[in-house]
């Protein structure tokens, strides 16, 4: 157990060091990235020194690194050059939107992927299986932003029934339940584009493991017991097909949650973590990049931990493996 903890601590240090180093390997420096483009401003050497000093950019790299490490343990993620506020404030303002969009899309694509996968695998080779299989593969073979743009044109521009962009209508004066509905209305298009893209991996995995599961003796036994078809399908074969899905969702949720929706966020101007990271790379905003990467790392670790617990519930055999 001690060894395990030690390896966790070492891994954590390697990760936070990489978080520090990698953004700084990008060509260009924050001062040029933020101020360099604008011909209208007058970045005198005094102004340059003042900004470097204010953001601690002039300090040697090693000093910057130690300040960064110490700050992390104090719960301080640093100060954003571009947004001119603490990184924690920047992150907390973007994370809820990401959780909402990605959480919902993972949830819906997961549920529908599993159901379709179970039904499809159960009826392998039949017409309905072939139909679902080809439809899902067809719809997910388009890149997410393309699906987004098509949805935008059809529902936003031609039919005009759904909002074109944003997380809500700014300064609409809406309150209470109407405001919530406005949020949901703005979610529909980006959410459905993401569901369409995510559904295939979940569907294919479920279908595949379903196909191998229905050949197992326990399915035969269940049949022999005279259980109903749907009971065998969902509670016996289906349940056992979920194990690979759980693993996959764990990896997905951590990484996709933050970065997976970047194109969709840009197409729909949705204020999520993807667009924040993209902007921070463009502006070489090291503290925000470090902070976002740290959050992603922690999220992956936490989710993996939760999945370990969840596994045991899903498949009690795992408990005996230790």
């Amino acid at each position, binding site marked *: 157990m001690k060894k395990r903890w030690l390896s966790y601590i070492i891994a954590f240090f390697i990760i936070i060091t990489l978080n520090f180093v990698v953004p700084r390997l*990008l*060509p*260009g420096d924050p001062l*040029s*990235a*933020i101020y*360099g*483009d*604008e*011909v*209208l*401003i*007058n970045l*005198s050497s*005094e*102004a340059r020194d*003042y*900004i470097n000093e*204010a*953001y601690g950019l002039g300090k040697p790299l090693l000093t910057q690194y130690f300040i960064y490490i110490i700050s992390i343990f104090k719960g301080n993620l640093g*100060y954003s050059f*571009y*947004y*001119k*506020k603490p990184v924690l404030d920047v992150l907390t*303002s973007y*994370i*809820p*939107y990401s*959780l*909402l969009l990605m*959480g919902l899309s*993972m*949830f819906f694509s997961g549920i529908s992927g599993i159901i379709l996968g179970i039904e499809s695998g159960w009826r392998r080779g039949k017409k309905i299986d072939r139909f679902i299989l080809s439809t899902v593969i067809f719809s997910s073979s388009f890149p997410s932003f393309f699906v987004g*743009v098509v949805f935008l044109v059809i529902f*936003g*521009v031609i039919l*005009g029934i759904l909002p*074109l*962009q*944003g997380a*809500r209508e*700014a*300064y*609409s*004066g809406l*309150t209470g339940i109407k405001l*919530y509905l406005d*949020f949901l209305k703005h979610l529909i298009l980006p959410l459905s584009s993401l569901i369409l893209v995510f559904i295939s991996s979940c569907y294919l995995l479920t279908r595949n493991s379903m196909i191998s599961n229905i050949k197992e003796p326990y399915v035969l036994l269940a049949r022999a017991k005279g259980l109903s078809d749907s009971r065998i399908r969902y509670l016996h074969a289906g349940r056992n097909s979920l194990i690979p899905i*759980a693993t996959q*969702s764990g990896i997905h949720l951590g990484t996709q949650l933050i970065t997976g929706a970047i194109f969709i966020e*840009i*197409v*729909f*101007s949705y*204020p999520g973590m993807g667009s*924040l990271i993209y902007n921070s790379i*463009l502006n*070489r905003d090291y503290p925000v990049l470090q902070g976002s990467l740290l959050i992603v790392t922690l999220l992956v670790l936490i989710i993996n931990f939760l999945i370990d617990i*969840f596994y045991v519930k899903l498949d009690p055999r795992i408990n005996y493996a230790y």
Partner: protein
Amino acid sequence: MRKILFLLILISLLLLSLSCSSQADTSAHEIIKIGDTTGDWGFPSPYGMYSRGPGYIRMSLIFDTLVWKDKEGNTIPMLAGSWTYDEDKNSFTFYLRKDVLWHDGERFSASDVAFTFDYIKEYPWVWVNSNIIKSVEILDDYTVCVNLTEKYAPFLDNIAGTLPILPRHIWENIEDPLSYNKNDALIGTGPFVLKDYNSQEGSYLYEANQDYYLGDVNINSIAFVKASEQSMPAMIESGEIDAGSIPPDVVSDLEESGFEIKQEPPIWAAKLILNHQTNELIGEKSFRHALAYAINYNQIVEISRRGFAVKGSAGLMPPANITWYNENTPQYEYNAEKAKEILEDMGWSIGKDLYYYKDGNVLRLELAVSEGDFERDARVIKENLKDVGIKIDLVSYEAKTLDSKIENWDFDIAISGHGGLGGDPESLNRVIINEGFNSVRYFENERLIELLNLQVKEMDRAARVQMLYEIQKIYSEELPSITLYYPHWYWAHNENINIFFTEGGIATGIPVPLNKTAFIDI
């Protein structure tokens, strides 16, 4: 897993409800909305805004300067009712208005002006070069005299008309202006006060300052909201927003639908940047001339820009800057034969594959371009250069990576661009002899350097114009970079709002059609 997801969703809905409760509650129909593709331009205080034109515009609604520009670009009084310039003492005296109140009700006076000039000396504000300011004297409560260290022709535009005056009673205690974002950092004297700012959604809401000293503010509330480039035209058409920038392709459609179109003076320059510093071949002037003759500018404008651009002037200054543009600047018209002639005079000879060779080496250059918009231009240029026998390798980089390569002279030729050419020609110094990737950093011609330094100090307009004419001529001859084109940009708006482009741009030359005087009945 589902339980976790439910929990996540619940939490985020909760957080969202928290975040939205902070948005100001105003009924929709009174607000004039302006769309913006970027959305967030920073906390709109002088030190909090992002240092770009749109950031300045958002700040300028709250803070006033000593003087300002009208539609025609004339300097008009703002906080200063009048002013004089004493050539012998090299000082400007401003006679301030006596009827101005800060948004918190305090009276505005000369001490605020003097304080602001001192403050930017201590905490440099990147829009203004504070080294020019020697001292500021308060002559009486409403008169200040600004003494300059040297003659500075753009003083009225680039300092008096750009520097927002700060309330002394608030800022004298602030020692970290870059991070100070409390509400009192937004107390100005301007026509609007900020009601709401949401960084992640990129939205701003302003309300009219009813006690504004210049006249009645004719818009009750004005908001900036984020709108993607693709959805902007549809949002204007549906009335969701009242004004916004639009792609050139939709101009005629929107015009037919009855919307007003405003065309920005084409003053943003797309350039072929040449590495005259570390690439020996490009360091030769005649080779640069050959390149200039080899490029078919009209083809770039017509094919790559689909006609929505003006051909570049070899002297860099765009024809749209009518005050300073020299129409007699020698230009390079597309002439492939002439390009070949120059190359042959330089000792290059054509090979079997129709490329030029010298000492067994093919004439080959790498054309660096940032991903996206310039790639079409790059393809046309590649074909043009191939036609005269120059082999081009096209390489794409992420935008900031390319900037850094240009800054470090780690390229052969590259396409990049910058704005800033619509206002005072001091900007030419920044893009010719200053440091930074936006500048060609060309120091080969002493007369050019001398003229650039002199023109900024020339207080006589006519003499300065002559200097600028000569600068453009020399630039065209030396050709440290090749100006390809100046693109057209458009805005569309409905009848709820009146907007216009300011001749020479707002403040130091910002080409955004949101001059606050349009919202005031003066």
